[in-house]
């Protein structure tokens, strides 16, 4: 990191990436519900009433105006489709899907237009659109506001997906997403917004499709996605006390997945636990384990394991929700089983 790094919050890192990219490139615009708020009331002195439901877009409308920071009606199919069309025509839009749970009202635009247009049209087009959305349970929002449904995006050829886990990766990956000529979906985790960390002042990008090793270790590989990375770190700490030296990989991208980083680690540690807050079937966790089984079977000294949500919707009541979300204890248990304790 550079000398200009300061400690800021994840939500501020998102905001800063948006602001800097809008400064840099007049073709960057943002569309979404209440991203400024109080739309159309500038004459009444109302500008930026909300700054986004999680305040990630605050102050942007003051700097860039309502043409580029555009509150939308509740019409995700329409405005995400429009963002895709604008991208096809040359803009570089960022569109916000408030929660990933709502993907079903706009999936067609992502699946059949954003993801396929370049291919179907024989390469004569790029779709440099960024979709920003939110994932994560644990805040009592129940079944329709708590999903971590990135597997579907990872499944779809033509889309990319990134899952930043701290302020530094949030800014770097969002900047990369905006500058990328392909459609990229960025998943912000609700429980990370107040997490702080050092972030360089100036704009920078992190490579989409690259994981990072957060903690080296030699006994077992723990792969974390988004918030789960920190559960892996907590588990690694607990395991250290038991004499187990875990390596923690922060996946950072769900498409492309950095299989090579995982494989390299597993070839060293010979054990693997993948931690994914999404439900287990056809998940990113399943995907990673399947590739490791295909490409590094002989290196595995113990069965690889998933630690994920169960195959159920997200329950409301707190004690059930706590059982639902993977935590360090479950990771430790899986790791112990893998190392044979």
């Amino acid at each position, binding site marked *: 990191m550079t000398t200009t790094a300061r400690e800021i919050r994840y939500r501020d890192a998102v905001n800063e990436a948006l602001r800097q990219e809008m400064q840099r490139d007049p073709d960057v615009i943002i569309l979404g*519900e*209440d991203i400024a*708020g*109080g*739309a*159309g*009331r500038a004459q*009444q002195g*109302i500008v930026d*009433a*909300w700054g986004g*439901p999680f305040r990630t877009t605050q102050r942007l409308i003051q700097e860039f105006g309502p043409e580029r920071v555009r*509150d*939308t*009606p*509740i*019409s995700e*199919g*329409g405005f995400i489709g429009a963002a895709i069309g604008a991208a096809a025509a040359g803009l570089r839009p960022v569109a916000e899907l408030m929660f990933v*749970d*709502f993907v*079903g*009202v706009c999936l067609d635009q992502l699946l059949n237009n954003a993801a396929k247009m370049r291919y179907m049209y024989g390469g004569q087009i790029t779709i440099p659109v960024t979709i920003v959305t939110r994932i994560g349970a644990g*805040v*009592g*929002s*129940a*079944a*329709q*506001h708590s999903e971590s449904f990135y597997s579907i995006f990872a499944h779809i050829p033509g889309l990319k997906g990134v899952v930043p886990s701290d302020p530094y990766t949030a800014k770097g990956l969002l900047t990369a997403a905006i500058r990328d000529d392909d459609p990229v979906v960025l998943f912000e985790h609700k429980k990370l917004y107040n997490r702080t960390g050092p972030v360089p002042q100036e704009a920078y990008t992190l490579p989409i499709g690259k994981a990072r090793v957060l903690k080296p270790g030699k006994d077992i590989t723990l792969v974390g996605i988004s918030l789960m990375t920190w559960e892996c770190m907590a588990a690694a700490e607990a395991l250290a006390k038991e004499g187990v030296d875990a390596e923690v990989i922060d996946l950072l991208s769900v498409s492309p997945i950095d299989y090579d980083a995982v494989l390299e680690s597993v070839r060293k540690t010979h054990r693997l*636990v993948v931690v994914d807050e999404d*439900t*287990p*079937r056809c998940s990113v966790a*399943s995907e990673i384990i399947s590739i490791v089984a295909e490409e590094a079977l002989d290196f595995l000294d113990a069965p690889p*394991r*998933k*630690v*994920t*949500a*169960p*195959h*159920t*919707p997200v*329950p*409301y*009541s*707190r*004690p*059930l*929700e706590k*059982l*639902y979300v*993977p935590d360090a*204890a*479950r*990771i430790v*248990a*899986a790791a112990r089983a893998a190392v044979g304790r």
Partner: protein
Amino acid sequence: MLEITQEKLLWMYRTMTTIRQFEERALAEVSARRTFGGSHSSAGQEAGPTGICAHLSPQDYIASTHRGHGHCIAKGVDPKLMMAELFGRATGSNKGKGGSMHIADMSKGMLGANGVVAASVPLAVGAALKAKLRKEDAVAVAFFGDGGSNQGIIHESMNLASIWKLPVIFVCENNQYAESTPAEYSVSVRNVADRAAGYGMPGVIADGMDIFDVYDKAGAAVGRARSGQGPTLLECKTYRYYGHFAGDNPRSYRSEEEEKQWHAKDPIQQFRQRVLAEKVLPTGELDAVDAEVAALMDEAVRFADASPLPGPEGLYEDVYVNYPLEALRRGAGMGA
């Protein structure tokens, strides 16, 4: 003069008061952190659900929104079970599995609150389709907001109900805002009701702060539906008194003056003034209802507080009617 029975008038008053008190209690409990998630208050909007549900019986259906407490109460869901649900208790209407945004009670024809804007609307269409196929007398009411009116599913649902002449009443509760976004910005036409013409159905505007206006217009719409004449779009112009959710400060996007203007039309106060002026109900009786409802709220909170939280097995229950339990846990590292 009001042509409504005393009994129904009392029901109206009790229902509106219960909604108001429930909403205020729920907000207080959110602040006190006794509930888990947030809560969307419908205080100020009581006349709509009440005036509409006054025409319904338990075999009629309603489908509701994220702001569903008022709909639930007006349709007869027990506030005790609702409070226990907010508290995440096993005794809640949904066994603590749903919370504020998903309260449902099939025994009351309450098809559920719904956290996805406008997503419950086609469910009402389907319930009406069932009523039509089975030649039942039932109708279905679909509630949605001004913000919800811009979702594509509304268009599809209205078109379907119209071509199939289904007994549906589409109720747009236009409380002027979707979160912080004013309807005057997001809706391309003056009244949501104006869109009804595009579906060949009547579009009616009611003063959503005046239960008698709602009651009359809803009566006509329900009558149309029951007699096989098809759907109606009824827009209730109303206002939510509090923020979008428990933590929202609405003054960031609307003025004190505007709030005052709407408060001056408070549906409960208007009701009181009218029935007192027309001498159809005495003050004493109304006050007694207030006290009765307050006691009910205390009881609801006590009940909720005393109720057990769901046990861990609840996590896996009711995902399916039949599916191997093992499959819900398998490959998820759920532990023992």
